């Protein structure tokens, strides 16, 4: 079964278009490098920035290797505590990506389920869920995240640092699910009226099974594209929150935290502490966005 699916994918139009689009291939390559570095940071990174024992305070605030005072050991320089920026970038990317992907997965789960239920059952359930969506959309994502974070701090004052990851995911998915719900609801409404669904009803299949086996697989098309683009946006929201100080703590910094930490040193000339995390953030978000854009165009039958 799976070999059949893979065979169909690599023989299909989407893969063919991918091979012919330099932009898609470039952004996929960049995204892939970032993901590999992030996942295998323990082995790929030259140093371990989280292990306080390996830090040498004497090497603090060293500029990047190609500048006069730089050492080859620290390619992108070090921060105020002697942490290697390059390694911190890899670990930070890992956290950023983890938060991004995890929050998208949670949003997808909640959003797709609610969208499916709303579209399939219709009536008051549909109206209720859609009104909740409308209300959620009128809150800016950052403010909701700040609120959740504030509540998290109030509820778990001591454990905040360790729970930061979970709190961040909740914060971001609280507004993120709405897009999925609306998109899937639209697709469900379309598929529900198609004749193969009516045929299943005439056969006597239960509504739950129809939703799960007939409607869901066909309504998921636009969701893949949405998910890719939302990963980029989730990463940026997380970075913003961390920059504002309400995201990942310095003990396990994400890219946003690194930018914040480096911000203080910007004016005194140690630019590398902020600029490199910033550049990597932009690169990751951009490559994921481009990939998502290309995927959306590739899957749009009218543009083919």
């Amino acid at each position: 079964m799976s070999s059949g699916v893979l065979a169909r994918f690599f023989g299909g139009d989407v893969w063919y278009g991918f091979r012919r689009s330099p932009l898609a291939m470039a952004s996929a390559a960049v995204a892939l490098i970032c993901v590999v570095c992030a996942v295998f940071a323990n082995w790929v990174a030259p140093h371990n920035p989280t292990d306080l024992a390996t830090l040498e305070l004497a090497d603090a605030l060293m500029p990047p290797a190609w500048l006069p005072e730089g050492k080859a050991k620290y390619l992108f320089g070090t921060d105020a505590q002697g942490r290697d920026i390059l390694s911190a970038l890899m670990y930070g990317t890992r956290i950023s990506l983890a938060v991004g992907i995890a929050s998208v997965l949670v949003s997808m789960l909640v959003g797709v389920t609610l969208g499916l239920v709303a579209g399939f059952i219709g009536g008051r359930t549909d109206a209720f869920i859609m009104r909740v969506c409308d209300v959620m959309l009128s809150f800016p994502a950052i403010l909701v995240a700040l609120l959740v974070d504030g509540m998290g701090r109030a509820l778990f004052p001591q454990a905040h640092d360790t729970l930061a990851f979970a709190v961040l995911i909740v914060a971001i998915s609280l507004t993120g699910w709405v897009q999925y719900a609306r998109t899937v609801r639209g697709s469900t409404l379309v598929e529900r009226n198609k004749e193969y669904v009516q045929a299943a009803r005439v056969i006597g299949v239960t509504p739950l099974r129809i939703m799960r086996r007939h409607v869901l697989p066909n309504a998921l098309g636009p969701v893949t594209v949405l998910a890719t683009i939302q990963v980029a946006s989730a990463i940026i929201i997380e970075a913003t929150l961390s920059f504002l100080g309400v995201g990942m703590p310095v003990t396990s910094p994400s890219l946003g935290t690194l930018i914040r930490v480096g911000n203080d040193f910007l004016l005194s000339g140690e630019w590398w502490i902020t600029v490199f995390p910033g550049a990597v953030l932009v690169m990751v978000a951009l490559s994921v966005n481009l990939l998502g854009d290309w995927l959306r165009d590739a899957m749009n039958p009218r543009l083919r």
Partner: protein
Amino acid sequence: MSTLVEVRDLAKGFDVSAPWLNRVIERRPRQWVHAVDGVSFSIERGKTLALVGESGCGKSTVARLLVGLYDPSAGEVLFDGQNIARTLASPQALALRRRMQMIFQDPYASLNPRWTVRNIVGEPLTEHGLVRNDAELKDRVVELLRSVGLVAADMEKFAHQFSGGQRQRVSIARALATQPEFLVCDEPTSALDVSVQAQVLNIMKDLQRSRGLTYLFISHNLAVVRHVSDHVGVMYLGRVVELADKASLFATPRHPYTRMLLDAIPDIAMSGRARTPVQGEVPNPLSPPTGCSFHPRCPHANERCRQERPALVEIRGVRVACHAVEEGRL
């Protein structure tokens, strides 16, 4: 000669009102479309009843009412003596569903694009517990595919790999899986080319003969109807205006609308027959005419036609709903 399906005063209305908020703000009343407005007929076992009419006449809605996709607003549908609305709400629903199935118009939307043909045709078998294991499922599916002129290798293919005519055959195979007695066919060949249509109609006729199937055949094409049916019902704006056996309907149509329909068919034989010119178009179902809904287009309408809705009465062996025919004016 027993009656398998009987329909009594069947009616179905759809609420097409604006959303509640709009109605309150703009002070608009609720609006209903009476898609089916009091329809009665019966179908004998092993025979084909065709329902024919133009857009908005309600024939597709009748089809869906008969298989329980919609619940009637009024009236009842009896299948082998049992009221289907009641049975479908009871634990015996699945047993009833096994005996009646449906074939749809659009060959491209009636098969799940992500399922293989084996799953599509096998779904009714697994749903009704008619097979015990995978091997038995496979055998049954192959048997069904062969009966509609497809081959066993087609089992692993997806819907988009087939042409329109082949997809309709898959739909027929799926409908036959539970060995039903009654098939509702909603314009099964309207979306197909002429030569493909001929293939599918031939298959359907062969299957009817070999399995003793009863068909309700919906169509807008009178020539096709003439080819497949035993009895014909002509519908207009939700009502049956004429109900007769095929020979009588085509030889001596009585209702003015039936005559108009038969006149309007393009004449391939080019016999140069005389025709009465056709007038007007089907009115908006949201605001149907009073009395007899055909009166604005009828050359024989009188005052009674404008006020009083004609009942479907039996006149010389056929049933017609027309004052002019009843009064002997026609």
